[in-house]
């Protein structure tokens, strides 16, 4: 008989609330490092200056506890729930939403969610969060919070290619998606690519790929090579920081793939802006 790991719903809410603020105020060291490298490499004077503004912005945000970007995003929460974890004193979904509500209120973060996509009345507390839950063998509850901006989300795309389109078709679609997005997603961007699975799963993979620290590559050498190739082609587009021309359009390309149907080759591109806000906490471990 395995003793369950009990986690209080209120602890989940507190954690999510803290992550909302931490992500929006404190740009991760991985992103700062990538921006530093981009600043060093960039040859366009305008783009170089924009990159130094972004680094300065990160310092101001951290110091003043101000959001890095006024678009503090839709709250996307990934949960890894251990098989032996038991949540007490409430349910997971409500606990997460309570955390988002608290974090966005106390952190003076913008409320950017409308209750209905067509009638468009703001919910005024940035809920509901988008929640993806996965059961895992580990005895923990891992919460990854992502503040996902609307501008870059709008430039994301999905396509159902045919097996005949292959790698060439995939590269064409990814590069074309970034080329069409131009300045809109706030370059320098991070490009998340999901390959395979199903229509819905490819999109989820693309989003999940964005959770990986910027600057790390896929463990599969072939996929890592594909990431490199895509990054090179994307940076050759000349879009640059804020789309005013430059050599660094993307800080990174992350690819994740999954088995798929013999008839299919789903490809999803989820773009994130330079204000790449991802923070993780693990509960349930002593």
């Amino acid at each position: 008989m395995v003793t369950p790991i009990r986690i209080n719903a209120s602890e989940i809410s507190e954690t999510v609330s803290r992550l909302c603020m931490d992500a929006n105020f404190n740009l991760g060291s991985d992103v700062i490092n990538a921006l530093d490298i981009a600043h060093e490499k960039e040859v366009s004077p305008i783009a170089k200056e924009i990159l130094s503004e972004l680094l300065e912005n990160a310092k101001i945000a951290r110091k003043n506890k101000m959001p890095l970007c006024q678009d503090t995003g839709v709250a996307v929460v990934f949960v890894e729930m251990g098989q032996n974890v038991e949540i007490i004193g409430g349910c997971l979904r409500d606990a997460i939403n309570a955390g988002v509500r608290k974090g966005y209120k106390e952190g003076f973060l913008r409320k950017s969610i409308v209750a209905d996509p067509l009638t468009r009345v703001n919910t005024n507390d940035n809920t509901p969060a988008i929640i993806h839950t996965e059961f895992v063998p580990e005895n923990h509850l891992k919460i990854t919070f992502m503040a996902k901006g609307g501008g870059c989300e709008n430039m994301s795309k999905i396509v159902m290619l045919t097996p005949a389109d292959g790698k060439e078709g995939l590269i064409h679609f990814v590069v074309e998606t970034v080329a069409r997005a131009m300045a809109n997603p706030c370059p320098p961007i991070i490009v998340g690519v999901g390959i395979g699975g199903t229509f819905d799963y490819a999109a989820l993979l693309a989003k999940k790929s964005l959770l990986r620290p910027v600057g790390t590559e896929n463990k599969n050498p072939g996929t890592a090579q594909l990431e490199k190739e895509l990054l090179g082609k994307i940076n050759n587009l000349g879009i640059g920081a804020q789309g005013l021309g430059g050599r660094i359009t993307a800080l990174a390309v992350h690819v994740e793939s999954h088995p798929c149907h013999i008839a299919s080759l789903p490809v999803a591109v989820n773009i994130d802006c330079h204000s790449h806000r991802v923070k993780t906490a693990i509960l349930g471990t002593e």
Partner: protein
Amino acid sequence: MTNIIHINTPLSDAVVEELKIGDKVKISGTLYTARDAAHKRLVNLIDQGKELPFDIKNQIIYYVGPSPAPPGKPIGSCGPTTSYRMDKYAPLLLSLGLKATIGKGGRSGEVVEAMKKYKAVYFVATGGAAALLAQSVKKMEIVAYEDLGTEAIRKLEVENFPAIVANDIYGNDLYKDGIFQYAVSIQCNS
């Protein structure tokens, strides 16, 4: 590196005539904020022949939905939102004397034409540099549509708000020129 041009609102024709793409400006004076939902309401008012909640003649509209003001600050973070979503509404507002818009990302051919026709310019501010841009805002008041929350129309008093001229009144487009300069063609891709 280009010099910084200091400009004050309201903008006269003489001021916008001098501005060229790539010019760096620092704007002082008044900016009115409006984004998707506010634009929809403004254009509805115009369609009904009603008066707008503020006089847009010679003014600047900043496409922004700021984050809430923390205690002791006039405004929260306030960087630009993507401008193309307002392209549908911009030509009509420009025809009424709006002299400039501030946002991020390129404009449609129709908007570029309207800017040429009505002598207006488009400035870009750095998207995502929202905490930095907030430092230029000295005062904020809500002018209309408070029910829209962050999308309400606000009057901002700014000092030295930094921006770059992306479209001038001569039909030039910094986005096109800039990207053309740095794009690496497939043939010489090494």
